[in-house]
């Protein structure tokens, strides 16, 4: 414990000397530090902050130092995140590379691949996207059809992905491809390639919220060198599932969020008003209270699942419910937020609406995807029923 306190003191000193003061202002959405070759830094200090954190490996605190990581123990990493939270530091880097790809590379990649791909992730130099879903392979992901033909020294890739988050902004893609058409799950491989390769095209999809965080991504005779296959040929499904676990874990840590970060009851007080100290709309008050309780129960469950998983050295059964619960809760929150704002929650743009109001409305629309992305709620419930509760498949 004494060592941890020494570490905490070091972190504090380092943050005091290295966290740029200009970042104390609230971060707007277009300042999100995704890094990569295409990143346009609105504030040069945000770039400096990433470079400083990346140089210490603290953007990926627990990854080994050999691959650019911070080499910290889980306890030290918790101290680091506590200290970052204490000064309300902005994230130095937001990254699918760190949240999803890195952990599976550490587990499945060759030594050469780790040395090649991990350090640029840590430093935020390469931004990754995820090539999973296809027009004909959503919930039934393993029916994917994007082909990778063996052409001796390389694979030739043809097909289409969809719902590729930020494909138009990403530098590289981790992609599921079919390398054997005679089998389903056992015919899938996990490959990495550069989005600037000839034959790659990403087209943004406009969503109901007006934003375009996802793309359709087309591959037309894209050449991928064979040393960019991760794991075994036709062994990609195991890696794909593992990566989804990290994706869902990441959701569990942060929840879905969205919106202007306002507290529901404060918004309701402002727009609905109080009568004798209570929200004037008794029915809305009761539903907000029920939601606040659910949100608290969720936060306590995430914490319990972490403690139990650590104690049992394996996932707690509570882990399985987290994606489903997080999606339901976030959608419920945004519905209540919209309702609390009344007609002020129905603006699309322009005069008559405050920027936070527009943001909340857009976030409500965006939240409809929470029960679809990363595994639909229906698929999540199937997984709980079968894997956790041991119920059988329908015959």
């Amino acid at each position, binding site marked *: 414990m004494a060592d941890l306190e020494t570490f905490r003191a070091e972190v504090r000193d380092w943050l005091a000397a290295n966290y740029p003061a200009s970042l104390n202002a609230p971060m707007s959405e277009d300042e999100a530090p995704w890094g990569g070759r295409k990143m346009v830094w609105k504030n040069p200090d945000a770039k400096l902050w990433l470079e400083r954190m990346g140089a210490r490996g603290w953007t990926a605190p627990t990854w080994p130092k050999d691959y650019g990581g911070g080499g910290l123990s889980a306890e030290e990493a918790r101290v680091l995140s506590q200290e970052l939270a204490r000064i309300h530091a902005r994230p130095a880097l937001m990254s699918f590379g760190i949240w999803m790809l890195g952990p599976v590379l550490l587990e499945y990649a060759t030594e050469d691949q780790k040395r090649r791909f991990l350090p640029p992730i840590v430093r935020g130099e390469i931004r990754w996207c995820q090539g999973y879903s296809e027009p004909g392979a959503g919930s039934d992901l393993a029916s994917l059809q994007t082909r990778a033909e063996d052409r001796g020294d390389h694979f030739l890739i043809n097909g289409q992905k969809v719902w590729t988050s930020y494909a138009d902004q990403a530098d590289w893609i981790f992609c599921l491809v079919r390398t054997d058409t005679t089998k389903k799950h056992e015919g899938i491989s996990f490959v990495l390639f550069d989005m600037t390769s000839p034959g790659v095209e990403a087209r943004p999809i406009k969503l109901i919220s007006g934003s375009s965080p996802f793309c359709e991504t087309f591959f037309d005779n894209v050449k991928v060198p064979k040393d960019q296959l991760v794991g075994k040929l036709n062994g990609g499904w195991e890696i794909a599932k593992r990566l989804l676990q990290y994706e869902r874990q990441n959701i569990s840590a942060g929840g879905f969020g969205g919106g202007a970060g306002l507290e529901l009851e404060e918004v*309701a007080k402002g727009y609905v008003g109080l009568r004798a100290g209570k929200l004037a709309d008794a029915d809305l008050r009761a539903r907000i*209270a029920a939601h606040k*309780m*659910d949100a608290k129960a969720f936060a306590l469950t995430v914490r319990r699942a972490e403690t139990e998983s650590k104690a049992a050295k394996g996932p707690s059964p509570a882990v399985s419910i987290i994606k489903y619960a997080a999606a339901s809760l976030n959608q419920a929150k945004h519905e209540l937020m919209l309702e609390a704002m009344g007609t002020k929650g129905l603006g699309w743009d322009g005069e008559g609406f405050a920027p936070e109001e527009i943001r909340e409305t857009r976030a409500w629309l965006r939240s409809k995807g929470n029960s679809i992305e990363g595994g639909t709620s229906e698929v999540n419930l199937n997984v709980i029923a079968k894997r956790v509760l041991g119920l059988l498949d*329908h015959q």
Partner: protein
Amino acid sequence: MSGLNEEQVMLRDAAKAWVDDKSPVAALRRLRDQGSQTGFDPAAWREMGEMGWTGVVIPEAYGGSEFGYRSLGLILEETGRTLTASPLLSTALIAASALNLGGTAAQKEAWLPKIAAAEIVAGLAVDEHPHHDPARTALAATREGDGFRLDGAKTFVAEGLAADLLIVAARTSGEPGEASGLTLFLVEGAADGLVRRRLQLIDSRGAADLAFTGVRVPAEAVLGEVDRGFDLLETVLDRARAGLAAEMIGTATQAFETTLDYLKNRTQFGQAIGAFQALQHRAAKMFTEIEMARSCVYAALDAIDANANDVRALASLAKAKACDTLHLVSNEMVQMHGGIGMTDAHDAGLYLKRARVAEALYGSASWHRDRYATLLGF
């Protein structure tokens, strides 16, 4: 299990073994069919005392082990699984908490060792109306000589018929609905002027209506301070709510597991009914609710042990989530069992009946949601 120490693991495992062996659901059914007046088995209660369950929140100086509320919660969760009817919650958790938190040295000396030894049964008499509302207390305590005389009525008093000692919320000043002006009294079950009538509830446990007519108690019977009893009462009730919520989580867990077992074994259309997605999703949602409620219950009990400043909110959270969850699971238990679930021979009905009584006791889900909103300032 997270964060349990060795003592707690032993306590939980021993409780599990004991309820399976000595107190399966059949024990409650037997009590009911025999028409038990007090609604519990005295022999089982003695055994609980011998195992040390009655002293878990009582200081060692008064014969307890002071393992804490999380530990007692583990036991209540196990007894809840099999619907074990006993005065454990009323006596060893609620009355022990009231005496320990509000009692003078003499009061503690007089009662805590007896509770720790399971020599007495004790209960809390708070409600006077069909809905829980401590501030609405009207039962009058009027000064008379050196002491007080109590006049009024209480209802829905758990273990009220068997209790040797009652902790009675009474009004010494102010009007019903006001938090100030309440005082807690220690009243012996055999006091003159106290008439107890058995309430036959759906859950077959011991409950009573109490009528106080000129019941005289000395000044030493005041627990805590005169006129300032509300805060102590709420502090005791929060412990009661968290403890009851632990029992309810055990009840919900067993109701769910029994139902899950049925889904795996009952065949229709040539397959286990649990293979149908409509039932699978409902089962997965129940599991989700149970796990979320469980987190709240453990957090509330931990907060009590840590003397944290958010016990009030967490106790309301735990009770409300336990109520909603047990309500859902007890209904689904009947529905998913189909016709057999409607028969008296099956246990589903016993779970459903206990669920509703536990839901109403010490505040319903909606009462606690209202309180939670108030605590959060809206």
